[in-house]
């Protein structure tokens, strides 16, 4: 069985990330944890955007479900197993996304984006308003949990994040990536892509457009919550800032930066964005302007994103070699 190029890319990526902590200073290993959170959430986001053609502009809300879910379960209920928390927040987020999706999936394009933005802001003001329940602006604590039943007590949180938890998150990203790869390359995945390209024609070929859009929405919510739980664990706090509309904008930025037409695009986008923002913040006080300029440049000049550029380069190389 010929090893597909995608498998090679996935393998190289995983190995590179696996070697990272040994090569780079611990700070950057710690910086990768939010990258893992965003990458997993973006896998779900891109099932909706890249594969089903629905741009959600309130997607940070699902990361919020993950973070606050983790805060409630481990902080309030004292649950110690991170796996249990992860699964529960994914199910809870999917459950919330169902009714919300029923409303939103009847809409496409800008209207869908607007509705998800409205829901995102509703959740943000809910978190802010019911401060007695959600802690308002100071958020809710996400205490440390054990992974795979192991406490790793000998590590303090910083070492734990840069060490065992780093590999744990890498593992989750690989699993999530594999699961999403299978979904996207399954019959179900093909029907999603027909919806993206031509929903009317798809209907005539027996594609349940509304139901499938809803399914993609719910799956993306689950992946978003998983990413949110990892973020919550890393910060140690779930706070309303995580669900503000500019965060949803940042998620779209990462997807487009990486190239949403490609499966690995959003993951590459999340990595590039995390490193770019880190370097820019140390460079200048006006780093938001530079980020905005880069986003504008990508949207206008390189809509295919980094993955698209890499593909073109690879093809040009292959042609020259062949």
């Amino acid at each position, binding site marked *: 069985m010929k090893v597909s190029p995608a498998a090679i890319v996935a393998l190289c990526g995983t190995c590179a990330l696996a070697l990272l902590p040994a090569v780079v200073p611990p700070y950057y290993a710690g910086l990768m944890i939010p990258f893992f959170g965003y990458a997993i959430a973006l896998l779900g986001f891109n099932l909706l955007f890249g594969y089903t053609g629905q741009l959600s502009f309130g997607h940070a809300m699902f990361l919020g479900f993950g973070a606050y879910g983790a805060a409630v379960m481990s902080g309030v209920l004292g649950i110690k197993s991170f796996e249990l928390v992860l699964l529960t927040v994914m199910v809870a987020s999917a459950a919330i996304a169902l009714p919300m999706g029923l409303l939103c999936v009847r809409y496409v394009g800008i209207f869908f984006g607007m509705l998800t933005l409205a829901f995102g802001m509703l959740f943000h003001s809910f978190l802010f308003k019911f401060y007695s329940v959600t802690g308002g602006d100071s958020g809710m604590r996400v205490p440390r949990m054990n992974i795979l039943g192991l406490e790793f007590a000998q590590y303090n949180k910083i070492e734990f994040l840069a060490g065992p938890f780093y590999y744990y998150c890498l593992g989750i990203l690989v699993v999530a990536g594999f*699961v999403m790869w*299978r*979904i996207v*390359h*399954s*019959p*179900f*995945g*093909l*029907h999603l*892509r*027909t919806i*993206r*390209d*031509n929903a*009317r*024609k*798809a*209907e*005539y*070929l*027996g*594609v*349940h*457009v509304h139901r*499938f859009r809803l399914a993609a929405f719910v799956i993306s919510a689950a992946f978003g919550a998983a990413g949110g739980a990892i973020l919550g664990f890393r910060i140690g706090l779930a706070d309303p800032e995580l669900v503000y509309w500019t965060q949803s904008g940042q998620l779209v930025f990462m997807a487009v930066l990486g190239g949403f037409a490609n499966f690995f695009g959003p993951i590459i986008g999340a990595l590039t964005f995390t490193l770019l923002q880190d370097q820019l913040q140390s460079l200048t006080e006006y780093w938001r302007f530079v980020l905005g300029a880069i986003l504008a440049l990508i949207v206008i000049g390189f809509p295919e994103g980094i993955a698209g550029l890499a593909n073109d380069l690879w093809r040009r190389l292959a042609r020259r070699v062949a």
Partner: protein
Amino acid sequence: MTVLLETRNLSKVFDAFRALDRVNLAIHDGELVSVVGPNGAGKTTLVNLLTGLLAPTDGQVLFMGKNISGVGPVELAEHGLARAFQLIQIFPKLTVAETIAAAVISRQKKRWRLFSRLAADDPINKRVGEVAGIFGLRHRLDTVSAVLSQGEKKLLDVASAFALDPQVILLDEPTSGVSTADKHTIMKTLIAAAKLAGVKAIVLIEHDMDLVAAYSHRIIALSEGQVLADLPPDRFFSDPHLIETVIGKRRGH
């Protein structure tokens, strides 16, 4: 011959405009029925009602005896009624194989398989190969639809409808935009493909009279939303008054 698709005084009114007025027609097993008439006679409205895209104002559409009025194209595809479009409808970023596979997946009821690898699903791939073969698209299986030629796109549009193994297929001017020389070859391919795919009846919406004459078992003429005539070709073409109305020189009664 059993009746596959039937309408019972089917009417459709848009605000004040009565697009269809108590249309009664029946499509039987093994027939190729052409629906002809000048523009604005209600052909497109009829197609939209037959394929469940629009709900009738009153009257019914029955498919295999079941009332399918306004049920929507998704349900109908499952029941075995397919449609190819007048304006070519394809999936630009999907390959020919994927376009056909989409229909095959619906047909084989595998749409909710989230984790099985499409590439490894032999029954689907085998069927896709067959349908592509029938339509002479086997050499184009891995080509992205957007780069196909106009003729190939037309074939793909129709092929994907056939891939549903429908009982009845509705072809909306399948040869429009194709050179007159190729029109007959396309029609022959379609009819041959229909037999191979087990299609029991074809409804053809067509302006080109010699195509209609050449291949129809029966011709239904529509004018101003009403059935003007429902005759076999020989009696249809022997009535000059009818031809003029259909071609649109003179308004109907």
